[in-house]
Every structure is written in C-alpha cells, then in structure tokens.
C-alpha cells in the first residue's frame, strides 16, 4: 500500500511538474517541456518579434493520422493546451489518415483558412515541403512536429523518437545478449519516415556485433497484428535470443504470445505505455523502453504560441529522456490506470484518472 502511494505520488509529481514547470521557467528561455524531457539541440534562435501577432490566434495542425492510444492521448493533451490559452481563438486539427495526398490536402485547407501558425507532423518531410514553403513565404511560422533533416526547412522543430529511440533498444539487446545471438525485429508501418529512423537507430546500435537479425516483420505498431505475427514466429520454431520492437503496442502482444505458448521469455524492448509496463512487470521480462512522451503535442502548441507572442525560440528541440529499465520500472508504472495510458503526460492527474480509469 505504501509502495503504491509512493508510486502514485511520484507520478502525480511528474505530471504536475510537466504541466507547471514550463510556464514558470518561461522568463529567460522558453521551456516547451521540463528539462530532462526535452532539450534544445541547436544554438540557433528564431528572431524575436518576427512572427508576433495580436491575439486571438488561429492555429492549424496537420497530423499524420489517428489509430493508436498514444495519438489519442497526444491529441487530447494538445487540445487541452490550446483550450487553456485564452489567446488561441481557433484550434484547427486535421489528420491525414496516413495518406500523403490527404496530408497535402489538409495543409492546403489549413492555409486557405488563413491560420496564424501551422504545426505539421509530416508523414515524410519530402511530402509536405511545398505546402510548408508556401506557409513560410506567407509569413506563417511553421512548427515541425518531426525531423526535417536537409529536406524540410521550418521555423522550429520539435521531436523525439527517431534514431535515438531505436538505438536505446538496440544497445539494450546488444548488452543483454553479450554481443551475439539472433534477434527478431518488429517494425512499425512500412514507408513511414519515423519507422525507418527508429530501425536505422537499432541497426546502428548492433553494428559490428555478432548479432543476427533472424527475421523482420511489419506489425504496424498494432497489438492485433503484432500478436498474429509473433504467434507465427513462435510456432515456426525459429531461434530467438531477443526481440527489438519499433514501439507502440507490439511488445505486449508478443509477451502474451510467449505466455500462451509456454515459451521462456527473451529480452524485449518496448515503449512507455502503461499496458506494456504492466505486462513487463507481471511477466518479469528483461526489458527497456524509450520514452516518447505525448507531451510533445502540447510542446508544439507552446512553441507556436511563443512565436506568435514574438518570443525567440531555439530552432531545434529533441526529446530523448532516459529510458525505463527494470530498475526504474516502478517509478513509471501506474497500476491504478488502464493499458491505454502513456507516460509521461502533461494532463493533470484527475483528468488522467478520468480518461484512463480501469
């Protein structure tokens, strides 16, 4: 009981810290999320007052698509952030259903509505470069909820995940397996830039070792598909010493399959989802989970607001907090919440309990 209260208090503190710390630290430098959750990765700053505009503002968002609980929570956090700011008159959220043509159309529809700031989470930087260039040419600040590399020039870039996400899992498995063995790789949705970056990070982490990728499948970051694929692999009897996952809800599916098949668990990587943390704790598997916080959504809204207030921001921010491991698992797992919750959250604890009650 004491332990439960301690964990509850720790998480409450974490949630409050995330929601309260940013405005409190805004005087010297804009904090999009508390230190440790996100860091500025470029010394370059946007010019002050360049995008300053009188409120009320119209902020448009073009997101890649809906379809998993991380996105649902992130959208909720974004909307809450926007609704809590009286200077935001309209908050227009569009989602592209993972379709490049739809994302281009969404951006066109947002621009025609004369938004004051644009937040774009590109399916791939190359696919939206024309619309982003058009927005910038019209003097509209663009916050990239993603990584643009050399392809997509935006005003500010806010992201997590990517190569570093994949690398965390790769390094963990390399260490656990002593640099040799056979790994199954569960990838996300084929053709999605973020997925490719995570996979590249994983490959980089095992480069030069004697670790072989025994098999590689696309589980679409989805529990049902991940489970089906894992069942096939387990039943095929292919050797496996560890499993790398591209995140989302596939690891929980595979833990369930191993348990149902009575197969001894191997080290697995996951993501900071309460369902996975529960399965991880219950099964006692050796695991590691990078944190890809839904708080990135509100961080992009804060960035857009700061630009419209005429404040200066760094041009690049990146979220790569220390991962969850067997050692600190209890600090993050919330036994009082259901499997759909993702840590860490900017939502207040009462809202979290309302949304993710068991």
């Amino acid at each position: 009981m004491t332990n439960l209260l301690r964990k509850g208090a720790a998480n409450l503190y974490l949630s409050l810290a995330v929601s309260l710390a940013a405005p409190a630290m805004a005087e010297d430098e804009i904090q999009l999320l508390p230190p440790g959750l996100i860091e500025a990765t470029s010394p370059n700053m946007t010019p002050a007052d360049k995008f300053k505009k009188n409120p009320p503002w119209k902020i448009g968002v073009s997101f890649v698509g809906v379809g998993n609980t991380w996105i649902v929570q992130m959208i909720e956090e974004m909307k809450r952030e926007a609704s809590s700011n009286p200077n935001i008159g309209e908050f227009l959220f569009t989602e592209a259903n993972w379709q490049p043509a739809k994302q281009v159309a969404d951006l066109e529809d947002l621009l025609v509505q004369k938004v004051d700031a644009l937040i774009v989470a590109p399916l791939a930087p190359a696919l939206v470069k024309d619309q982003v260039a058009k927005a910038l040419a019209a003097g509209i600040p663009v916050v990239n909820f993603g990584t643009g590399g050399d392809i997509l020039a935006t005003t500010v870039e806010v992201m997590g995940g990517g190569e570093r996400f994949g690398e965390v899992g790769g390094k963990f498995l390399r260490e656990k397996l002593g640099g040799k063995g056979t790994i199954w790789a569960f990838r996300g949705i084929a053709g999605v830039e973020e997925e490719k970056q995570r996979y590249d990070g994983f490959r980089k982490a095992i480069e030069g070792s004697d670790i072989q990728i025994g098999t590689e499948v696309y589980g679409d970051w989805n529990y049902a598909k991940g489970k089906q694929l894992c069942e096939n692999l387990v039943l095929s009897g292919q050797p496996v010493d560890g499993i790398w996952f591209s995140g989302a809800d596939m690891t929980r599916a595979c833990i369930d399959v191993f348990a149902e098949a009575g197969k001894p668990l191997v080290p697995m990587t996951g993501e900071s989802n309460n369902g996975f943390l529960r399965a991880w704790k219950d099964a006692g598997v050796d695991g590691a989970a990078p944190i890809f916080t839904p708080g990135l959504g509100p961080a992009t809204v804060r960035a857009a607001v700061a630009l419209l207030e005429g404040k200066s921001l760094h041009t690049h921010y990146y979220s790569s907090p220390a991962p969850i491991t067997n050692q600190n698992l209890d600090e993050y797992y919330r036994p009082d919440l259901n499997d759909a919750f993702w840590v860490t959250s900017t939502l207040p604890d009462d809202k979290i309990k309302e949304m993710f009650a068991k």
Partner: protein
Amino acid sequence: MLDLARGSRRTGLSPIVLVLPVALFVLLYLSSGTFRSLENLANVNSQVAALMIASLGQGIVAISGGIDLSVGSVMSLTSAILVTADPAWGVPIALAMGAAVGLVNGFGVTLFKVHPLVMTLATMTFVQGVALLLHPVPGGEVPGYLRALAVSQVAGVPAAFFWCGAAILLAWHLLGRSRFGLRTYAVGANPVSAGRNGIAVTRLKVACFVLCSLSAVVAGIFLTARVGAGDATMGAPYSLDTVTAMALGGIQLAGGSGSVLGIVAGVLTLGLISNGMNLMGVSPFLRAAVTGALLLVAIGLQRREAIGA
C-alpha cells in the same frame, strides 16, 4: 413526391447521385466563406484530380463486370518509378508497368477464371511489395516537366482542371461514343449473350483491365508530381476510394450499368466531404463515421437492383 431512387438502368444515374454533390456544394457555399474562395475551389479541384482519373478507369472495369483493387498499388509503384528511374524513362516505364499489370489482371480473370476480386488483390499485394522494395523511404526528385504539368496554372485555371477535363472527355468518348463502350456495357450486362452476338469477350475484358491500370498510372503521375516527391504507399487508399466513388456514382458493381457523369458525381461528393470536414473543423474521430454514414445514405437511397444485389 420525388423518387430519389428512380434512375436509368443503363447509366445508374438516379437523382440522389446528382443531388448529393450539388447539395454538399450549396451547403458548404452557404456555410463557409473560406469554401467560396477561388483558392479553395482550386484546391478542391487539385485534391480530386487523381481520384477522378483513377475512378474513371475503375468505372470502365466496373461496367464490364469486374473490379480492380490493384489501382492503388499501381499508383504507388508509378510514384516509386518516377523518382528512381532516369527522368526521360520514368513515364514510359510506368506506362509499360501499368499495361503489364492490366494484362496480368485481364488474363487472370478471363483465361484462368480467377474472380476479379481475388486476382486484383493478388496483384495489388505484389505490386505494393515491389514499390516498397524499389523506394522504401518517401522522397526523391520528380522530373521538372511533370511538376510544371501538375501544379502550374493557365490563365488562373489550375492544371488539375485540364487533367480532369482530358480524362473525363476520353472516358466519355470511350464509353458513350465508341463501339468499345457499347460492347463494354453489353459484356458487363451479360457476357454469355454478348459472346454469342460476336463480341470478343476475353479481349474486351483484358482491354478494360489494361485501360484501368493505365489510368492508375496517369493518376499516379499526377499525384506524384503534385506532391513533389515519391512515396511507395502513396496510392494505397485509392483502391477502395475508387470503389466508393463507384458506389456513390450509382455504378452497378455487377456490371452493365454506370456512366461517366455518375463517376464524376461520386468523386466530387468524396472530395467535397473531405474538404468540407476540414473547413468545418469536424473531429478526426468523427470523420470516418460521417463519410461512412453519407455513403450508407447514398447507397440506401439507390434501388437495390442498381447497386449490384
């Protein structure tokens, strides 16, 4: 009382097919100042162009009594080819690929008697895999002349208008003004009877699949040029979107019925729904449900015999 379900058996056009896009247009015109802007109307035109071209091809196959689910994958592979092949050869290679896929689909359906749904599902999966192998990460450079053809304007009229116009005229001529069209309707309505009356059913069905794949290639070229980058999954939603446009346009999926006007109406309805929901700020969680509900209403108001039952 107006009978919204009554329509021509040959064209499948019932009042609801035509009323729906007009009603949506009027509703959006009256409710959103942004919708009325020329910029937005040009956007809508550009947004529906690829679906229009691909749907016209799908319509030819549907009228002949088939269905082609490989449309989207052919568009995706076209996109992958355009940004990986030599700029001078991208379009010819893509067209050759389209013709090959159409031939495989056509021969599979006619000579090997595989159901069109199964046959084109198989080619869809194969072609999608090839596209991902060829160009796994979105990006690449689209040849400049294609970009100019897709995004430029002539006297303020967007290029997409001319792409749509050319595709509609060609489809209208093929289906409504040529022997090919007459035979396609005959084969779709009753292939056995059409064969007994001297129509080369196999050859005609193969030609329909080839035309459909070629239209998917053209749609893929337009879409890739419009987006300005290649993507091996770019066409994925179009396989089902073209079928949805058929249903909204009153095309009888069992064959022998349908019209270019119906296809145009179906595509416009889908385009207006998407644009309208963006402009009206409909929640992303509601959008799919709203689209599905509208589709159900549209199909529910058509005669049962006119929707392939």
